[in-house]
């Protein structure tokens, strides 16, 4: 399947151009306790009437989705039933869920807000996306923690190839509120200097929680390929590793614990990179890694690793420079030796 458009909302701003700029610029220390999407990044007057009641989680997803469609320049107005929407998330709109619990604890079981409850369900974001885009095709929200985005891609490919849809808008969204930050502080080792170190391959790596959303407009139609083709998405399938890659993006971000397995992939000699220090630690961060790979293939440019701590002296991408790149692998481990791979091809 081909990537026709990409939309990104992340701590560095909104839009694929902002993300491209951030990749070129390199690491910047997060302004607060994590890589949080700024308020101004999720204000868009064009969609005000349709998302005015939406929470932050849904707004991030809607804007990334709308931007992916706009980026593709494909007119979907006459194809309202041919667009499928697949939203992946690790934790859903938990900030709104806790707001609903606030209602229960403060006002009692019978006096909680119905609006808050209806926004606390995982598929609220997908509902807003379909409403804003006026899409009448199938819509699915799914969750699988570290592999949520990969499972969404597998389903997107299935929908396209069984001709359930002509286009699929597939992506991920996750939010990091104060409760999640507390949980991260208890469960993870938070980097005091704000630097995620993707190449340390530690049993207890450091993390810096982030939030955001990234969406891809996918199609089988090759003429709509703007970025790259996704040739394979595999979970624990060793055979996919046989093809030689020009580059390998490691999704190591400290979020899923033990990262020692990444070292095997890193020692293959291929040029290694990791961009989690641009957008933060997220269970669904693989979508951002995939977007970085798609940009590099489109631009025929290697982006330097934003944080270059390299204690194992592996072949990391140290410099941003033009390069001939045909194939990129994006690899994620879930801390339990289970691996997911996304293969991108120019």
């Amino acid at each position, binding site marked *: 399947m081909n990537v026709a458009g990409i939309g990104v909302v992340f701590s560095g701003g909104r839009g694929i151009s902002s993300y491209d700029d951030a990749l070129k610029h390199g690491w910047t220390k997060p302004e607060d306790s994590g890589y949080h999407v700024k308020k101004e990044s999720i204000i868009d007057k064009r969609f005000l009437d349709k998302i005015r009641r939406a929470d932050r989680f849904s707004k991030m997803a809607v804007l990334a989705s709308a931007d992916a469609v706009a980026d593709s320049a494909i007119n979907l107005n006459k194809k309202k039933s041919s667009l499928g929407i697949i939203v992946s998330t690790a934790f859903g709109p938990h900030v709104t869920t806790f707001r609903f619990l606030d209602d229960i604890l403060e006002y009692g079981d019978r006096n909680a807000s119905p609006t808050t409850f209806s926004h606390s369900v995982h598929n609220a974001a997908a509902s807003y996306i379909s409403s804003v885009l006026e899409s009448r095709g199938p819509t699915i929200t*799914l969750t699988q923690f570290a592999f949520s985005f990969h499972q969404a891609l597998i389903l997107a490919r299935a929908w396209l190839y069984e001709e359930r849809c002509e286009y699929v808008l597939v992506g991920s969204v996750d939010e990091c509120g104060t409760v999640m930050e507390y949980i991260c502080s208890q469960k993870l080792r938070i980097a005091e200097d704000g630097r995620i170190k993707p190449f340390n391959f530690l049993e207890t790596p450091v993390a810096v929680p982030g939030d955001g959303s990234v969406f891809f407009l996918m199609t089988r139609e090759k003429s709509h390929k703007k970025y790259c083709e996704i040739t394979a998405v595999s979970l624990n399938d060793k055979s996919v590793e046989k093809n030689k890659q020009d580059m390998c993006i490691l999704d190591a971000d400290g979020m899923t614990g033990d990262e020692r397995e990444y070292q095997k992939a890193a020692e293959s000699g291929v040029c290694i990179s990791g961009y989690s220090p641009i957008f933060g630690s997220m269970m669904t961060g693989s979508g951002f890694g995939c977007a970085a790979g798609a940009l590099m293939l489109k631009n025929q440019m290697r982006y330097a690793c934003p944080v270059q701590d390299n204690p194992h002296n592996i072949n990391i991408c140290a410099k941003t420079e033009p390069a001939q790149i045909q194939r990129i692998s994006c690899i994620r481990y879930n801390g339990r030796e289970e691996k997911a791979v996304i293969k991108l091809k120019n």
Partner: protein
Amino acid sequence: MKKPNVVITGMGAISAAGANLTETLDTFQRGQANKKPVFEHRMSTLILALCAVDEALDDAELKKDIEDFRVGVCLGTTVASQLNDVDFYRSYRSTGKASMDSVDRFLKGNLAQAVANTIKAKGPCVTVVNACSSGADAIGVALSWLMNGECDIAIAGGADELNRIPICGFGALGIVSESLCAPFDRDRKGLNLGEGAGILVLEKETCARKRGRKSVLYLAGYGASADAYHLTAPRPDGTGLEAALNRALAEAHIMAQDICFVNAHGTATRDNDKVEGIALERVFGKDIKVLSTKGFTGHTLAGAGGLEAVFTGAALLEGWIPASVGFEHQDEEIPITPVTEKTHIQGSFAVSTSLAFGGNNAAIVIGKKRWN
């Protein structure tokens, strides 16, 4: 592309109507509605799911051999996907600290993953969180996996426990009835919440043949659509559900008149039943045999799509559908009439529908055949 036939080789169900499919059919046979408006087993979502999975795997004779196949697990849930432990949050709110026990349970409790780990399934695994159509959509995802070669066998359906959060939430929405629910009835006052799980074992026909399994039932089609209308209310003209139904029928390569009954979502809310009735009449005509099983089970949220797929398959096998309990008075705004007694059915195809928050509509077509 040549699509493989997908057969149903196992079914499992647990709800207020029965702890397994045999008990459930006995309840249906007697037309025995539940005695109170909230149906609950006080079991966790995972336990409910595992009960139904265990029954379905037994039915499929798959327990011993499961590691020999690429078995996917796709399950829908709503409650189990949310980090919503009240005690954890109360502690955090009041002291800024909380035990991580409930967080650990949550992180280990992704429904599909937990089931896959328990039964040692090695194929794709995902939890669908599409609110009340999650179970039906999970079956649709599993169908896509099988048709695209992602696995040979898929365990699919939905499960949900009933806890304080949905009780408060649906109560806040003002759509819960204090009395027994009455789907499609003129005087319906809202839904009854329930809990349960319904599971199908889906299998490529070639795989089932290799295992020596002969199945009469098969999953003929799945269709889904978005209303693109409102977060909680269905699109009033019913065109969302109509589109899902037409897609499911097209995928099954059959016409509307081939359907012998519809197991409707029929929650007994004012909006759902009206919109669903309009859509069903438009697609199937006013004389289609329709029932809602919510009067037996309550609305089991993500469990509903799985349970009702099981009930639909079982009815095709049995040759009858139960009375749509709770229905007494025709609503002039609803152009279909649910069956009021146990009714004989004759035909090879039936539909189960699911509608959800967010404007999701899903329809599943189940077929019955003779083994070639």
